[in-house]
């Protein structure tokens, strides 16, 4: 058992600062264990979110030594032993208290994205046929645990605060999962350009780097969506065809391949 020094941000909307704590570290401990130990022993009003302790619920997002991480999946032995461990709330979202931030904006954004609407069932019993290879990509996207760490690092939100015009990587991923869903018939390309601000993304891939689910957000979701937007709005042939036929220029299966 070794003692480690922690600096944990305490405060609320009106301000706050890093406070010092000690924690006893045993084999295999993660940062969340230490934070909960501090909470149980010396700071019973230390606010933090957690549920699963296994990287499955996306509740315990924070910035550990400046890196956006799930606290429950950050092992103490992977942090430099000669430094204090600094734990701060996610910076992009308004702080509520201590490590708890106000992520309600994310929930509002999701609600504005057009919902899933499937094509009529393939079979008489109301079921569909989908091949595994046609759903692999969508399943990758649906691994998202909504930790919002990608939202937290994206500079369009973090530095430029474009929350009103830009939905962020999590929701491009969500929109991509719907757009690439083999059964879905809705069209979200127009709004992705207009209201959702996909053009602001300059493919820095910071979101992909921090994703604890290792989802290839930029390469597999955002870039293909950008291509669809480009196809739709900047390809003269398609543009003319579309005005003539009034048809949605969308062919899911083909672009999934």
């Amino acid at each position: 058992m070794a003692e480690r020094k922690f600096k944990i941000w305490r405060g609320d909307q009106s301000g706050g600062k890093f406070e010092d704590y000690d924690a006893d570290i045993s084999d295999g401990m993660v940062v969340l264990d230490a934070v909960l130990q501090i909470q149980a022993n010396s700071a019973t009003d230390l606010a933090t979110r957690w549920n699963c302790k296994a990287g499955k619920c996306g509740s315990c997002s924070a910035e550990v030594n400046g890196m956006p991480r799930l606290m429950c999946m950050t092992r103490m032995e992977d942090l430099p032993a000669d430094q204090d461990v600094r734990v701060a709330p996610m910076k992009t979202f308004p702080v509520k208290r201590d490590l708890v931030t106000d992520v309600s904006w994310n929930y509002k954004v999701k609600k504005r994205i057009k919902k899933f609407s499937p094509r009529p069932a393939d079979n008489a019993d109301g079921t569909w046929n989908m091949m595994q290879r046609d759903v692999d990509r969508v399943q990758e996207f649906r691994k998202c645990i909504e930790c919002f760490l990608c939202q937290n690092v994206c500079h369009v939100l973090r530095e430029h605060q474009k929350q009103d015009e830009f939905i962020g990587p999590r929701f491009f991923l969500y929109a991509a999962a719907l757009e690439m869903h083999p059964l879905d018939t809705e069209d979200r390309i127009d709004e992705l350009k207009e209201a959702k601000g996909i053009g602001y993304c300059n493919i820095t891939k910071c979101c992909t780097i921090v994703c604890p689910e290792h989802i290839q957000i930029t390469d597999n979701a955002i870039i293909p969506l950008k291509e669809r937007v480009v196809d739709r709005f900047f390809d003269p042939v398609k543009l003319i065809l579309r005005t003539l036929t009034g048809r949605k220029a969308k062919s899911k299966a083909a672009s999934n391949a």
Partner: protein
Amino acid sequence: MGQAKRIEHDVLVIGAGGAGLRAAIEAAADGLSVGLVCKSLLGKAHTVMAEGGVAAALANVDDRDDWKTHFADTMRGGQYVNSWRHAQLHAQQAPDRVRELEAWGAVFDRTKSGKILQRNFGGHKYPRLAHVGDRTGLEMIRTLQDHGIHQGIDVHMEVTIIRLFKQGERVVGALAYDRERGKFRLFSAKSIVLATGGVGRAFDVTSNSWEYSGDGHAIAYEAGAELIDMEYIQFHPTGMVWPPSVKGILVTEGVRGEGGVLRNSEGKRFMFEDIPDNYKNQTADNEEEGWRYTQGDKNARRPPELLTRDHVARCIVREIREGRGSPHGGVYLDIAWIKERLPKAAEHIKRKLPSMYHQFKELAGVDITSEAMEVGPTTHYSMGGIRVDGDSQMSTVPGLFAAGECAAGLHGANRLGGNSLSDLLVFGKLAGEHAAGYAREQDRGEIDQDEVMAAMQWALEPFGREASAGSEGPFQVQSDLQERMQELVGIVRKEDELARALEEITGLEERAKKVVVHGNREFNPGWHTAMDLPNLLTVSRAIAMCARARKESRGAHFRIDHEGKDPDFGKITHALAKNEEGQMILREDPVPEVPPELQQIIKDNE
């Protein structure tokens, strides 16, 4: 203290896991005003952690499967003390509920012909669990959540309900505080659905999160509802045992479904040594046959690792007690061995069990594609809970409904893996439907303001207490309770220990009344824990009382001083209710008798 903010709904659903979401969707479909309350953020409830799959007799992988077999499997797994009506409706309706998820956007793993793929699980005769790798719960909760947000449901996140109010016999409202600011909210509703999940936090080693403090059980009980089957706590055979900080975290049964085997320190597959008589016909008696079963051979019988959880957990405890355990006090669970049988086994494991791969890699530094895992039993699930009617899901309090893990009946003495996720869907829907029907027929009731004031005062008491020498915080009492329950009311139970547990609980109740909390009301975990404590104590007492009264071993309930089943106890359900003096009273009720046509189904499947 101020006033509580008043919020009106037709139907109030407490809990936003699978059961609560499904109930809310159903009630909202009826055009009513529906409120959905949860302690965490939306999408973070326990359901998100479920791994292995959802059980439904879709017969996509084995066309011999049907609801009758699922019904018989559920009853056998539950040792025939289940509510047969629940088991029947569950088996009949689960397939539609799963297909409906697909219509709402869920993307399950596929069979070669493009249907929903199903996997093997303990106690299920055929491959029956629809799944998405080992993150089925995430898929389910996200599908319900993403569908639900477009149904006009009002979601109240990070709000904790602490009390129910009645007018006469009928439930009419609930008091809550919001976690962020600590302000009170008073919900007025024509009917209420409880979907608050389980009680695992009453134990030290558990797969459950802080949310599982038995709130729904306790507030329903306080409001006069009956609890049944509380002695049946499921200890899942495979939780992580090392490192210490992750002790109890679940290792899905899916590992064994995919061919993983259990071995002791001598390298022996000890599960072959003890196969219960009523499963002998269905269980492989050699390793070769067991392997063929996991690979889909329809003529093979399942390996003994896939016997029911109660039995596997006890075999593991025996190995550990008799000195054949692993270095950190577990046994070995090995999936890496399948490389002897399968080309590209490592890729296969990573594809079928991705989150197990990551969990062990990142938390324990173990690569499950090349090394065995160390595992041991962990507190997992509460079969017991609020007594509800099989058809309507209404409790013994008019207007108060319950579904999901906090309700009882379906699972009897032992739940089969995968039967919970299907339980949530089937009975969540029924609870929502009947709560809506009830709400339509009722006027809005009156909530007694004095009761509200008294409840608010009670909630704030821990702040007012003077800290003095010897005064303690809520976390200390909670962890003492967890240790006592683990030690005295755990997997192996006996009379004197259960008696001691009840005494200890009385002592802890006194301590809980005196805990002091610091700081203010805003997002204060100390205060939140102080309010969870009475609930944890209520369910702990309920578990210990029922466990003491059941002087036999059945399903998850194991008495070392009364080994084996006693047919007389097999006819008894333990029911708990509060009497006029506020004491918990235990009653013996008859287990509902299975009608002849269903009995025949059970026979046909023996």
